[in-house]
């Protein structure tokens, strides 16, 4: 547990020192959302109708973009070996990396998303639910993405491979999150969707680090 905090703190320092990496995912999110009106057209009704989906698909792609090198640097420079020899479990390593990833990409998305939602005319009643869905959903994206990042460790053509592996697994959180926002926009209760989303988080929180750790161990074997 202490090792976990120690690792998270180091990862945060590393990301903050190389500031551009941390900003890249956020910038990607902002640019992607901005591009959609050019593809769909500026009519507020049409944009408002698809706003929830746009926000979420963009968030999902931004997560994916920043995920590829999650374990790669530590793997290449020998840090992973040293951590394991220091008695840190592969699960703790995975959990720490995923937590740090969420703190530097998921959390900023929560803050920027309302601004972007305003740009694409998200219906007024849906903002709270959108933030709730991101708060519950982006950790799930980071957790699932962490499995993918561990699987592609040491593989050729990492990025495209990661997208192929992870995007199908992103379908459930996407469905429940957008379902919740749409329900709120229509004046219905977003509760069941949000509960499913919370359920996904509760399941992914213990399971994803275990799966990612299993993949990390295969690499060392």
């Amino acid at each position, binding site marked *: 547990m202490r090792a976990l905090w120690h690792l998270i703190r180091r990862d945060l320092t590393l990301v903050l020192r190389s500031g551009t990496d941390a900003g890249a995912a956020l910038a990607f999110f902002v640019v992607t959302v901005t591009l959609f009106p050019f593809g769909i057209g500026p009519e507020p009704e049409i944009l408002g109708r698809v706003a929830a989906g746009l926000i979420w698909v963009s968030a999902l792609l931004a997560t994916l973009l920043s995920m590829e090198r999650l374990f790669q640097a530590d793997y290449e420079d020998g840090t992973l070996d040293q951590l394991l020899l220091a008695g840190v479990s592969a699960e703790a390593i995975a959990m720490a990396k995923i937590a740090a990833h969420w703190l530097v990409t998921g959390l900023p998305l929560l803050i920027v998303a309302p601004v972007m939602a305003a740009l694409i005319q998200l219906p007024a009643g849906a903002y709270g639910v959108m933030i709730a869905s991101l708060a519950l959903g982006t950790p799930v994206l980071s957790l699932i993405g962490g499995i993918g990042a561990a699987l592609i460790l040491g593989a050729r053509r990492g990025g495209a491979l990661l997208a192929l592996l992870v995007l*199908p697994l992103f379908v459930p959180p996407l469905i429940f999150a957008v*379902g919740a926002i749409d329900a709120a926009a229509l004046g219905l209760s977003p509760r069941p969707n949000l509960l499913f989303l919370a359920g996904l988080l509760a399941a992914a929180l213990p399971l994803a680090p275990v799966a990612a750790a299993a993949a990390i161990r295969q690499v060392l074997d």
Partner: protein
Amino acid sequence: MHRFANPARFMRLSARLLPWLAGATALLLAVGLYLALIASPPDYQQGQAVRIMYVHVPSAWLSMAVYGAMALASIAYLVWKHPLAGLFTKAVAPVGAGFTALCLVTGSLWGEPMWGTWWVWDARLTSVLILFFLYLGYIALVGAFDDAERGLRVGAVLVLVGTVNLPIIKFSVDWWNTLHQPASVGRLDGPTMDTAMLIPLLVMALAFTLLFAVLALVRTRAELTWRKVEVLRLFQAAGE
């Protein structure tokens, strides 16, 4: 199970089994296709298009069954380190992907006359499409490592992750589908099915299963042989 995990024994047993299996497959496929395409009656609602079902439904079953087999083999490979289990998983993945693609294509062909469109985001079709992506992901991942063993092991982890996720994906897609009230009305499986249709369907399902068994054996044998060639090459390089 350990008895069959011995590669040499597997090669011997499968060589003896293959001709019989292949013969039975050819026979059943011929009978099944005759029953499905010629002998069975057209549907009173769907007309001749119903014949697509005799290929579509068995391939849908197989697309899931093959993934199930891969999941079991992956457990055997990761937990008991059976060398054959990893090779088997790698060998059958393209077969499973093939059945899944067949299921999607026939579904689309059936949808055109029935729904008036090639693709509908029907809950089942969507789930099968995602299953197809899982197959593709596995195939791409296993092939992406210089060390073949490592590809097999990482692939096995992915198959298990997919296995845990499949029911969740299925559920979420069903949920999403009812939410969006799809335009599709026609369902493939009526509540009752005439025996004149059920028998050809079951024969075809059995034929497809046997076909899978034949392909699985042939491909696993090929993987094993390939492995042997590589080892021989290494010994040659070592100058032994």
